[in-house]
């Protein structure tokens, strides 16, 4: 495989049995912001986004 793929940052939302303070979209935002902060990057530095989702839970 290619030798130039690396994980340079990650983000995880605050874990809790229930998060009534955010919507589902805001939860994604929280994780993305944490990942960008960890990597020291801005959203403008990102060239491609891949999302893992489950339509059943997201009602989309």
């Amino acid at each position: 495989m290619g030798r130039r793929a690396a994980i340079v940052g990650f983000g995880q939302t605050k874990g809790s049995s229930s998060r009534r303070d955010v919507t589902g979209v805001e939860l994604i935002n929280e994780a993305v912001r944490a990942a960008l902060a960890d990597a020291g990057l801005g959203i403008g530095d990102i060239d491609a986004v891949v999302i893992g989702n489950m339509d059943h839970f997201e009602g989309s």
Partner: protein
Amino acid sequence: MRFRQKPAWIRGAAYCSDSYTLGYRDLADPRALRAAAQKAYRMAGIANPLKELDAAEVYDAYSYMELMWYEGLGLAAEGKGAELLRSGATETGGELPVNPSGGTLSAHPVLVAGLVRLIEAVLQVRGDAGRRQVPGAKRALAHGINGPCGQCHAVMIVEA
């Protein structure tokens, strides 16, 4: 481009899915995991995972899983998972610490349980795992599953 963190290089990444229908497969034979692990090891150039990996994070939402996944991951021969556990090789300070994070039995963020294993593997090779750090860890494995009773397995190898 310069990054704030030490990159965790992806050396191997593979997944394999078995039949959805439980009656169509042997639930005590994790062949999908075996296939995924062997492919990831080939990519990473790993011949003996027990010796060549420094830490492993596996999905163990139920206590039987860790023992069976040892065998699927090639850390123990078939039927020898319990023996490996008893030997202490997978404890903190052992030859290959498994789930220094506490694993999924300790905290199970269901839909991202595999991704969190990968985060933990990254923290290990970055040297950022705090009190659960495996000293000097350079190469770590992350494992996640999906589907009923270990239908689909994903294995990734990251390296500092």
